[in-house]
């Protein structure tokens, strides 16, 4: 526990500061997103060493949650998906001349929720890690499978398309050496592919290069930004009083949603908004510029970001693209997240958690007085920013293995990412399939070997059986519902025919 104070060393404080500033800027700028930005700075963080490097990456992750609200309120342009819902009431508040108060409430809500989720993370992660020590291959297989199936159901849009992306990611993960026997697969004699497709190159391509191509296809106009004076940042006593209940509800709700695989921060903000519209005393005002519509969702998306760290730190399983990049960073720094992280690398574990506290304070102090500056970042024309993103993508991809093949992978992933987005496919499930593919494969093959070929081994323990049953229900329920609908429609038309 004393390792928490590792976060207070000058180097780690600097890494945390750089991370949260970068994260806030990424949150402010529409497009790139935290996962892409984290992938781009990986070469830099590796040089900082495991603790400082991971503190910086984590800072980008939760800093982006803060930054996203700024442009939602001031410009009506959400910096990232988790802040979309904040535009509804936040921008209307700005038009009423209460932009400063909305920004302050958003920052306070983010701070409260971020701090709560860190406390909960600090208490829950070691407990879950101890629990996970009893997990064998069948439990890990069931958990990872449940994770990807839930994810495909929660990403929005077509479930079939999301599942197809997850499976494509798993297929891409089979390129290179197989995790148990060492057989080289699907490399087609390309030497650079023997170590597998670089996760960083794929992420940089799917999120970075694809974003540049999409911006070229449809350049976004820069919006004018409302000026906010420091004095205007003080919310009124009434606004503060009204913000407390939605902030608390959003915090608890967001943390719980964060534990579920999928785009938790985005879902949490929408769920919180929906809850406020139902239970708030001022629900009739929500949608017209009510402070509850800012406090609840902003608390929820920050709490969800903390909740999402629990499966990563205690089980080694990431369920969002950002935590997947964090996992990749950890592996590159020879730190294996999971049940043994606390035992093998206590400084890294507690250092990262400690940095969350420090980062939350930094973000609160940064976001209130510097909000005008951050909002102005959103007005920089993309034609100046995006060409530089391409070079950062190339550096990130190349430096992963010092291999030109990875630059090809980045270019391929970028073109693929641009094409699939145009066809209505979400690249996030593909990234998670790529990360979780080896976990699924290794645990499946180990479970089969332990069970001497008996498939029953996969559901031999109660946790594995419950998780597999849940996965089956989630997977098959929509198909069963569709069949039932067809059957009832058939019966109805048959009945009409005979009547």
């Amino acid at each position, binding site marked *: 526990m004393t390792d928490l104070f590792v976060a207070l060393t000058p180097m780690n404080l600097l890494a945390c500061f750089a991370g949260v500033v970068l994260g806030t800027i990424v949150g402010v700028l529409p497009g790139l997103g935290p996962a892409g930005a984290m992938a781009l700075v990986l070469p*830099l963080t590796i040089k900082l060493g495991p603790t400082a490097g991971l503190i910086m990456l984590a800072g980008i992750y939760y800093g982006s949650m803060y930054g996203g609200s700024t442009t939602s309120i001031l410009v009506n342009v959400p910096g990232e998906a988790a802040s979309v819902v904040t535009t509804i009431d936040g921008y209307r508040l700005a038009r009423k001349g209460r932009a400063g108060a909305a920004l302050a409430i958003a920052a306070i809500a983010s701070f409260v929720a971020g701090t709560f989720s860190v406390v909960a993370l600090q208490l829950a992660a070691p407990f879950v890690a101890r629990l996970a020590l009893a997990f064998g291959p069948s439990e890990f297989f069931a958990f990872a499978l449940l994770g990807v199936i839930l994810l495909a159901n929660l990403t929005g849009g077509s479930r079939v398309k999301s599942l*197809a992306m997850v499976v494509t990611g798993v297929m891409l993960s089979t390129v290179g050496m197989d995790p148990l026997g060492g057989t080289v697969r699907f490399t087609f004699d390309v030497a650079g592919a023997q170590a597998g497709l670089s996760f960083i190159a794929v992420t940089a391509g799917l999120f970075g*290069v694809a974003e540049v191509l999409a911006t070229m296809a449809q350049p976004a106009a820069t919006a004018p930004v409302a000026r906010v004076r420091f004095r205007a940042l003080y919310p009124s006593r009434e606004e503060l009083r009204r913000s407390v209940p939605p902030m608390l509800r959003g915090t608890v709700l967001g943390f719980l949603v964060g534990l579920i695989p999928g785009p938790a921060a985005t879902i949490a903000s929408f769920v919180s908004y929906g809850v406020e519209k139902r239970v708030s005393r001022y629900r009739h005002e929500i949608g017209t510029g009510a402070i509850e519509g800012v406090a609840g969702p902003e608390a929820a998306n920050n709490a969800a970001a903390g909740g999402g760290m629990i499966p990563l730190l205690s089980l080694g399983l990431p369920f969002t693209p950002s935590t997947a990049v964090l996992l990749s960073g950890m592996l590159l720094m020879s730190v294996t997240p999971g049940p043994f992280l606390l035992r093998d690398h206590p400084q890294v574990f507690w250092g990262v958690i400690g940095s969350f506290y420090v980062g939350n304070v930094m973000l609160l102090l940064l976001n209130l007085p510097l909000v005008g500056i951050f909002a102005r970042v959103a007005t920089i024309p993309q034609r100046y920013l995006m060409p530089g993103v*391409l070079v950062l993508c190339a550096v990130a991809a*190349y430096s992963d293995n010092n291999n030109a093949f990875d630059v090809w992978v980045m270019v391929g992933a970028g073109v693929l990412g641009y094409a699939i987005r145009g066809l209505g496919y979400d690249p996030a499930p593909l990234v998670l399939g790529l990360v979780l593919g080896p976990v699924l494969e290794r645990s499946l093959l180990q479970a089969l070997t332990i069970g001497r070929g008996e498939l029953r081994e996969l559901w031999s323990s109660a946790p594995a059986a419950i998780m597999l049953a849940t996965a089956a229900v989630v997977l098959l329920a929509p198909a069963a519902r569709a069949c039932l609908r067809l059957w009832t429609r058939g019966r109805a038309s048959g009945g009409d025919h005979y009547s």
Partner: protein
Amino acid sequence: MSPRSAARREQWSALGLAVLALGYLLAGRAYPLDTLATPGPGIVPLAAGVALLALAIWQLLAVPRSAPDPGHRGAVPRAPLIMSAVLALYAATLPVLGFMLTSFALVFVAARLMGLDGWWRPAALALGVTVASRLLFGAWLGVPLP
């Protein structure tokens, strides 16, 4: 885009997935399945290929005659196409010409394609980005760049 052409696009994307799955399954035949007790390296590729094929067929059958527009414009814009070709050229020439020259050209072309007019401003941006990246990653952080 009309609902009919959106539906056609959905069908083509499902067919593309099916072709990918079939190609992957064909290539995966090279790896042994062995037995369930001693599973070989071909088991997961087989399962993944079959799953993708099934999903592609499911999607193909589920496409209504007029699918909702996924948000893509009718004609493919020229700039992303040109940029994709330039990126491929960048990947091919990076090990030969080195980081500075290729990255300068990449940023210059990207800036021009994004609407940065004239020659001086794209050139200044390209020089700034390339030199800053070289200094930050190459000189300061010691990241080996080609």
